[in-house]
């Protein structure tokens, strides 16, 4: 998912990209301002979702205070990686959905599973029109005691699991989760696990910064932490003098 290649259908000589009608292309071709991984795990009392607050513009870290975790309704939280403007559009759709649901005033409201399904339909249908919302979404929530955690990608792939990640998180965080996640972790254990994964991502993902937020969704409600920094360790002896054994090499 680099910004370099046109997404699809761009006829190599035609200036009209995908559409046959004259004029500019109105289909998403590449992402511009992007967020990196979002991580999510279920624990004893609910769901924890974490993400850093960086908005990268290609290889520059352009924005350092982007909130990529947003509540929707009382029971649900959406975290997004990918194009930030598309995430803002998704939040606008979700806002209308929740408002509509609220106006029914029927004593019931949409569950995280319903919102996941709604988002899946949007993402899949836009992808079929070659105009995707360039995001991978992590949806988590608790309703009626049931903990829910799922993912929707920009092409409409959707699934739920006990621990999820988007983007680089799939390669760096999921192996840690598969090894160390277990049923009914406490809040402290859950946060520790997420922070471990976030630290590895900060070390090894170039788009990640050391300013993260963790959201905690329980039956009582949703709490998104203020952004904070992780502890890092750059003090290895070997880094200080890497070529001690071979002066002049690198």
């Amino acid at each position, binding site marked *: 998912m680099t910004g370099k290649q046109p997404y699809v259908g761009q006829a190599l000589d035609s200036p009209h990209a995908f559409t046959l009608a004259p004029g500019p292309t109105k289909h998403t071709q590449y992402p511009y301002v992007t967020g990196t991984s979002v991580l999510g795990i279920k624990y004893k009392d609910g769901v924890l979702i974490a993400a850093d607050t960086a908005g990268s513009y290609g290889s520059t870290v352009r924005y350092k205070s982007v909130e990529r975790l947003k509540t929707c309704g009382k029971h649900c939280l959406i975290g997004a990686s990918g194009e930030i403007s598309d995430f803002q559009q998704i939040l606008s759709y979700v806002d209308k959905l929740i408002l509509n649901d609220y106006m029914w005033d029927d004593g019931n409201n949409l569950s995280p599973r319903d919102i996941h399904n709604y988002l899946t339909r949007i993402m899949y249908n836009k992808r079929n029109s070659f105009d995707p919302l360039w995001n991978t979404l992590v949806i988590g929530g608790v309703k009626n005691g049931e903990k829910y955690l799922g993912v929707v990608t920009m092409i409409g792939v959707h699934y739920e699991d006990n621990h999820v990640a988007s983007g680089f998180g799939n390669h*760096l965080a999921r192996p840690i989760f598969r090894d160390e996640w277990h049923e009914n972790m406490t809040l402290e254990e859950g946060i520790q696990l997420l922070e471990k994964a976030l630290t590895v991502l900060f070390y090894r993902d170039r788009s990640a910064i050391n300013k993260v937020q963790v959201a905690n969704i329980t039956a009582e409600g949703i709490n998104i932490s203020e952004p904070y920094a992780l502890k890092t360790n750059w003090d290895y002896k*070997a880094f200080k003098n890497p070529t001690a054994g071979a002066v002049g090499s*690198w």
Partner: protein
Amino acid sequence: MAEAAIALPPKGGFNFDLCKRNAMLEKNGIALPRFRKTGTTIVGLVFKDGVILGADTRATEGEIVCDKNCEKIHYMAPNIYCCGAGTAADTENVTDMVRSQLELHRYATNRESRVVTALTMLKTHLFGYRGQVSAALVLGGVDVTGPHLHTVYPHGSTDTLPFATMGSGSLAAMSVFESRYKEDMDKEEGMEIVSAAICAGIFNDLGSGSNVDLCILTKGKTEYLRNYQKPNPRSYIRSKGYDFARGHTAILSTRITPLKDQVTIIEGDAMEE
């Protein structure tokens, strides 16, 4: 007096003559054959007394596993071993070549080989071939100057690190190292972390699998632990066994060609020893 330049044989390194022709072929729509790479997880780690190298044992040809238990930790010298990722032929041959150069060098200098010697030979060769020799290596060993761990990339660049991972499973393995590595670990801890990193690659990366190989190098002693862990045993064998009685497969037609009519047997002497 001034003749046109004499055609000299190339002095070594990559010969680019055929690249234009390949580009022309591709432009004309002829698909060039892809060479097969092996997915891999290889790691190395420096601990208190030396270096531990680890590797998985799966070799792939595209989507098929062609060798379930191959050896990716190559011998370079009694005190130096090298893990290889990338094109299997390239890793095998480049390590073999440097191994033999090192041995000759040992005879010439009458000294134990040094890791930086192997490193310099490898990087010089790979740089000359402009990345076309697709070998990504984790080189580790203990010599008179101490324990050393290096990574070598196909284009010839090297890094000197306390812990390193390469191959398609390198991210999974690196996540284990980054979260668990400590300086000056002892041998048991080191082996535990290295095998955990390889297992992360085996279970999370499709290009890696099967067993864990370890090699522990310390001053004066090398332990090569082939198949140190086998976390993917064959879990089901049919209790009745596998026996295919006649009649299981339909015979469509039969043709018997007696070979005696085709072969003439001549009496003769046995071959000289």
